[in-house]
């Protein structure tokens, strides 16, 4: 039994998430002015606490977050393994550790062979440089020596089909050419271990096919090991014989790709996870009126599925009489542009008056969710008859929509957009009718 080419033993990665006491906007980086400002606020707060005789709390709260916890697995030479899991399951962290971008907190990984990781195509491409120069640049970044690149140069250029534009700065390339060139460099790396993250989700379908064939060759014919992460379950099952399902930073299941993927898609989300709490979210604005949205219960389950039925229940509390209320929710893309909205009063205009304080709920049923597979942010709100907003929670949650039973495999995750069911009529006989017309026009020879 040969040694496994990749062995991962008890791998864990911890991130520390600092919580600010007086702001809930997470900053991506620290600014000196924030640190100074925060220190001053901390001192002021502590002084205030002392004056009022409260307990002095040291510092801001820091929460531990384990992106990976005790992950262990072995991969043998020549295996092609797909890694699936929903967002935040630890896939990216695992890839980052395997490609040595970040260090693990605990555990160890042994890689027996040269590793190339493709977390992105065209890493380090410089728009001002020519195609030729970028091949050398990108190759060096991916770990090829100049001699190696020189040897492979013609092959790379032929694969990318950019011969005529070799000395053109790549800022003038079309996006298709750019992706082709980037993948061509990566495809000729010849590492023993190739780590690929979602890079096939770009480029036209013709080129995607070419990439898939190349990846197939790399693994089947050349006996290389491939770790492949994708949200496109169709590609995972067609490319990888086996798969690993990561869930909340741990390996949930490992086995034949088809079984793991179908298990992953049909997983039952526990009931407590089907409810999104709204009551404790901080409101931006004065929404302290008589109505407060408390939670959304996704009766048809999470994640939401494109093209399938959606049932949800909105719970809200009433503390005083309200008239003519309407509740609505909507989905926005990551750029904050609203793509889809649903309201209780659309169509029939019915807006109930509620006087008695207490907990109420309203159910919504959507026959077929038109949102394509992607991540959206959820907006929820409620207004009364005079269009006065009673409660409003823009972008309160990130919601993942995954491919449904009828979603075509050609739809890639990002930018899938809104897809409605539509009727289409094909005409396959056009060519033969035209041939007929020609033969009628030129009779008798």
């Amino acid at each position, binding site marked *: 039994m040969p040694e496994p080419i990749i062995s991962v033993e008890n791998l864990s990665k911890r*991130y520390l998430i600092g919580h600010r006491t007086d702001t809930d906007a997470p900053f991506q*980086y*620290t*600014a*000196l*002015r924030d*640190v100074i400002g925060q220190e001053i606020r901390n001192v002021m707060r502590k002084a205030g606490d002392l004056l009022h005789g409260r307990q002095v709390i040291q510092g801001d709260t820091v929460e531990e977050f384990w992106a990976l916890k005790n992950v262990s697995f072995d991969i043998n030479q020549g295996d092609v393994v797909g890694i699936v899991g929903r967002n935040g399951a630890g896939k990216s962290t695992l890839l*980052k*550790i*395997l*490609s*040595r*971008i*970040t*260090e*693990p*907190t*605990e*555990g*160890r*990984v*042994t*890689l*027996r*062979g*040269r*590793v190339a*990781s493709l*977390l*992105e195509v065209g*890493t*380090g491409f*410089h728009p*001002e*440089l020519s195609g030729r*120069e970028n091949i*050398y*640049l990108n190759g*060096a*970044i*991916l770990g090829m*020596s*100049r001699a190696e690149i020189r040897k492979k140069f013609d092959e790379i250029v032929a694969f990318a089909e950019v011969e005529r534009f070799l000395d053109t700065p790549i800022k003038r390339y079309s996006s298709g050419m750019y992706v082709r060139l980037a993948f061509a460099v990566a495809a000729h790396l010849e590492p*023993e271990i190739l780590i690929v993250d979602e890079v096939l989700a770009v480029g036209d379908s013709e080129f995607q096919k070419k990439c898939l064939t190349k990846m197939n060759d790399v693994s089947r014919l050349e006996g290389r090991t491939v770790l492949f992460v994708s949200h496109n379950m169709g590609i995972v099952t067609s490319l990888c014989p086996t798969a690993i399902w990561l869930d909340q930073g741990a390996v949930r299941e490992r086995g034949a790709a088809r079984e793991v993927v179908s298990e992953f898609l049909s997983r039952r989300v526990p009931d407590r996870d089907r409810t999104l709490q709204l009551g404790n979210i901080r409101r931006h604005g004065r929404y302290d009126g008589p109505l407060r949205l408390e939670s959304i219960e996704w009766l048809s389950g999470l994640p939401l599925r494109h093209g399938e039925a959606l049932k949800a229940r909105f719970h809200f509390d009433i503390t005083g009489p309200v008239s003519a209320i309407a509740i609505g929710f909507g989905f926005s893309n990551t750029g904050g542009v609203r793509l889809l909205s649903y309201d209780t009063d659309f169509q029939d205009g019915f807006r109930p008056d509620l006087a008695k304080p207490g907990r109420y709920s309203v159910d919504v049923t959507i026959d077929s969710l038109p949102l394509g597979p992607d991540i959206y942010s959820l907006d929820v709100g409620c207004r009364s008859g005079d269009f006065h907003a009673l409660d409003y929670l823009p972008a309160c949650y990130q919601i993942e929509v995954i491919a449904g039973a009828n979603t075509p495999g050609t739809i890639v995750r990002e930018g899938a957009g809104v897809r409605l069911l539509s009727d289409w009529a094909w005409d396959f006989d056009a060519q033969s009718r035209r041939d007929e017309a020609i033969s009628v026009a030129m009779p008798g020879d």
Partner: protein
Amino acid sequence: MQDVIVIEAGLQERNYWRDLWRYRELFYVLAWRDLSVRYKQTIIGAAWAVIRPFLTMVVFTVIFGRIAGLPSDGTAPYPLMVFAGMLPWTFFSTSLTEAAGSLIGNSNLISKVYFPRMIVPTATVVVAFADFLITFAIFLVMMVWYQFAPGWQILALPAFIVLAFAASIGPGLWITALNVKYRDFRYVIPFMIQLGLYVSPVGFSSNVVSPQWRLLYSLNPVVGVIDGFRWCLLGGQGGLYLPGLAISVVVAVIFLWFGINRFRKTEKSFADLI
């Protein structure tokens, strides 16, 4: 022979210098990329390296040499003396500015590929050195213009160029690390450089500093570099103040050690911060 890579907490630390050597090819390529991007299609790129020090030299000659009437080093023409100081100073300030922004500018690399991060800021110093060579060519032209020949001291110039590298890389690495951690630090850098221009003896000779302050003044490592350059290029006219030079060398080495140290402390978290 098969490569075996072991990934474990803290292991990257131990193999650091070996990895740095292993990735030297990437260093060449990044330096070459920065160079060709700078001098490609932008005529101004090369022209900038000529115009900037030249204009500064003119201004300093007028202000310090004419209006303030400060003395030059020996018989050397004032503009030549200013320019000999400008050479290491522009090298120092360009490397500092370029290095500081380098990691942010290459954030897509940092978050997608592994390599010893020190490669990025040090590769930008090569660009600053290319600018230095251009400025040096102007200096030679000026020497011909003033019919001023350097002495045997010019043979020591490579040693001072090495010192200039050490004095630039140390603070450069430190500032780079700070700049990743605290993004608004970049607003402080131009101010520091502007201040440094007047604190360092660029527009005037350090011989105008009174002797009892001279040793303290040399705590600024750039002082030693500039004095050394002038001594080499102006035929030893101003003399070399050896205790000051020794202090500058020591401070530069301490800064270099400190910069590398700080950089490596923060380096591990760069991918998480960017």
